[in-house]
């Protein structure tokens, strides 16, 4: 019990360190702008069918399809990831470089410290996704009506032809958007955080994580057979079999499993690596002592 309480204190300290009101404000601004683009796309679609806020949510989180090379779709899908990698992907490296000497001996072990960073990233990812979804819904509500059901526009294939006719708000939000966005965000940012520790360079790991997402988009274009193997594709609703029948075997379960394997593999490797990591940056040591 004492350990749990002590851990809760470490995580509270980590979240306090990583959280900035300014970051929250910019996150809201980013998702508000993305939401406005989504609203524009939905409102400007010529149809007599009624629309509502969930149409915007679908459009903004659907991601680029396998036959789409639209840069607009790419940007709409990629920006939330890019911003998260920028804000939080380097929390561990920053913590280690700036506070490691004070903090880690107090925590007692490198592995305990690393676990704290992992849990912190999970918490930050969760609130980032919730903030994003909530902001888009609020912005959409300024232009479109609220409803507890998906719109006739969405269900009658106005946006995407293969949308299941019995799709519910709960399925769209809790089974599609949330797990895919959250799972991919966590998997890729865990990888980024681990690389930043391995390379002791936050910028390079940020570039690596961003490149992974961009290349997932690029290599997947017009290649239905490879999309399910690409890490970034896991969060693209429109590349999944339930919305794109030409892509085989790319189910929700596949994406959840894929992200889980990445997360577990990265965790296993990082826990082995972090055990004997030098808390003081090697490069600065050499420069100082040279």
């Amino acid at each position: 019990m004492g350990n749990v309480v002590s851990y809760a204190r470490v995580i509270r300290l980590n979240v306090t360190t990583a959280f900035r009101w300014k970051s929250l404000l910019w996150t809201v601004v980013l998702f508000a702008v993305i939401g406005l683009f989504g609203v524009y796309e939905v409102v400007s679609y010529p149809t007599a069918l009624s629309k509502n806020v969930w149409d915007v949510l679908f459009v903004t989180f659907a991601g680029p399809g396998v036959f789409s090379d639209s840069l607009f779709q790419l940007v709409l899908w990629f920006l939330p990831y890019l911003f998260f990698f920028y804000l939080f992907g380097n929390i561990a490296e920053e913590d280690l470089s700036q506070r490691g000497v004070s903090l880690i001996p107090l925590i007692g072990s490198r592995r305990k410290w690393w676990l704290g960073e992992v849990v912190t990233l999970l918490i930050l990812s969760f609130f980032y996704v919730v903030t994003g979804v909530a902001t888009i819904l609020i912005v959409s509500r300024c232009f479109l009506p609220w409803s507890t059901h998906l719109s006739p526009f969405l269900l009658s294939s106005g946006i995407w032809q293969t949308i299941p006719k019995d799709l519910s708000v709960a399925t769209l939000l809790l089974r599609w958007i949330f797990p895919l966005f959250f799972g991919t965000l966590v998997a890729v940012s865990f990888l980024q955080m681990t690389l930043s520790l391995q390379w002791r360079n936050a910028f390079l790991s940020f570039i690596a994580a961003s490149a992974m997402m961009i290349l997932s988009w690029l290599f997947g274009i017009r290649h239905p057979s490879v999309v399910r193997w690409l890490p970034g594709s896991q969060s693209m609703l429109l590349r999944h079999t339930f919305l794109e029948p030409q892509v085989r075997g790319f189910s929700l379960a596949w994406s959840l499993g894929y992200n889980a394997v990445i997360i577990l593999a990265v965790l296993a490797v990082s826990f082995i690596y972090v055990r004997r990591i030098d808390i003081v940056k090697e490069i600065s040591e050499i420069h100082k002592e040279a």
Partner: protein
Amino acid sequence: MEEVTTTVAVKPVVMLEGVSKVIRGRTILEDVSFEIPPAQIVGLSGLNGSGKSTLLKVIGGFIYPTEGRVVVFGKEIGKEAEFPDKTGVLIEKPGFLTSMSGRKNLELLASIRNEIGEKEIREVITLVGLDPDDKRPVRAYSTGMIQRLGIAQALMEHPELLLLDEPTSNLDREGITIVHNVLRDLKKKGITILMTSPNMEELRYICDTVFWVENGHLGKEPP
């Protein structure tokens, strides 16, 4: 009647045996061995790049030696313990959250172990000559004030060993006097202190033993 004298073997607080550290092919420390008995102030001096800071980091468990053994309070660092027990550390520039006050920073760090309360934190801040009621964020502190806060953090959880890397750098004359007085008081209380300074005169003034570090080797006097 014949007087009988007995010698009690004093267990060293810190013991290094053949410690070497090689970083990217460059030897920073080479075959360093020494012991520090309890309640002593030991100084390490040397030119920039001599290896004195690395030695402190190896003892603190922040980097592991390439060869050799570091034993602190009877436990081998890296094998029996990851970090030495009951040790306060000031190494490199102290990293505090710049948006919070000095006291709030110490309270957050102290909350991890929850061994000390507000009273002790206030006392230790006062001890290093800072104001515990100063509400300004750390970003408004001078370099000397941050250094004092770093020393306060090293002292706050009542350590029995202190590792201090250039504790008086960036301090004005008043600050240096305060730190020297604090270190002497701690020694009287039985605390062991290992500190570095490029200033050999300062170390001779405050320390019981001074080592000269040059090219990763340990000697008694500068050449």
